[in-house]
């Protein structure tokens, strides 16, 4: 039995179709990557009210500059690169505000108040630790853990190399482990 996923067109095919005027190809790309971009932008510190606009802006910028996408890198990585630049622009505009504090309703619900408290405390420490990481380490870590990007995709997203992304990730893990323990 062939899986449904195997029948779906890949990103380069959809991009090629979009370039030839197929609007549905753009719709498919937005549906495929929009939610992940939203999570990334949200966890990267974008205001919740701005996330949808930022996702839209990411796709518009991507489609406007499709000629600049080298097909040796993944389209997803390239989208995250644009989103990352939007985040940076936003930080510059807001003069360095970087992370949004966790709110109560964001945390996983638990029936056990004691373990809930411990979870809250750990989560806060982790979020504070992530916020305190150098920008590249933070972005590599979040792209790897939260978005599940491969190092090659992260390299495309952050304009670095897969090897450097791996090093940044391990630096981040080491720092965060020290913080949590």
């Amino acid at each position: 039995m062939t899986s449904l996923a195997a029948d779906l067109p890949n990103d380069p095919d959809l991009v090629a179709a979009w370039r030839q005027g197929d609007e549905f190809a753009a719709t498919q790309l937005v549906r495929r990557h929009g939610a992940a971009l939203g999570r990334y932008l949200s966890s990267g510190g974008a205001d919740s009210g701005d996330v949808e606009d930022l996702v839209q802006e990411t796709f518009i910028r991507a489609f406007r500059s499709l000629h600049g996408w080298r097909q040796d890198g993944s389209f997803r990585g390239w989208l995250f690169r644009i989103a990352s630049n939007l985040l940076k622009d936003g930080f510059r505009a807001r003069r360095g505000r970087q992370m949004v504090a966790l709110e109560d309703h964001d945390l996983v619900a638990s029936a056990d108040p004691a373990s809930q408290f411990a979870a809250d405390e750990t989560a806060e420490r982790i979020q504070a630790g992530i916020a305190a990481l150098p920008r590249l380490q933070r972005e590599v870590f979040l792209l790897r853990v939260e978005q599940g990007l491969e190092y090659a995709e992260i390299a495309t997203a952050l304009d670095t190399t897969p090897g450097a992304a791996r090093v940044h990730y391990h630096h981040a893990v080491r720092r965060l482990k020290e913080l949590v323990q």
Partner: protein
Amino acid sequence: MICEALSDQMPAVARGDVVWDAEEALHFAQCAECRDEYALVAAVLSSARPAPVLDLDRIAAAVSAVGREEGKVVAIASRRRTWTRGLVGLAAAAGIALVAYSIRTDDPVAVAAVPARTTTAIPELDALLEDELKIVLASLTEEQKTLTPGPIPRLGELTEAELDALLDDVEG
């Protein structure tokens, strides 16, 4: 080495997308470093902000609309540029032809005496026969005939040598 292999898979395992194989599971059970890292990854995932609610269909429609709009603009602009460029080239060529033709028509005998084809300073005109030049001129409106071709100097601005060269071209 196996620590690195496990590290690479930890986000996917923590999300439930994959599971450790027997060898990895054995290593994981014995390696405190790997367990610490996995605990961190799992904690980050469980404490991650929930995915924001997005109206992806609205985003897709907006993106498509922008693309459609800009696609049209680009197409019209590029067509206009091509058309304008052609007209400018034609006007420039016709302007020179007009000058050359007016010199010739002063002397009908001279026109008849011009050799069949000589190389001129205007390559576009070289390919045209006399009758074709007349058709080009006739196709121009009065307004276009009064256009002064930008890069082409007026006769009054030519030096004696340039005028001689032009005359040589025209008269053969």
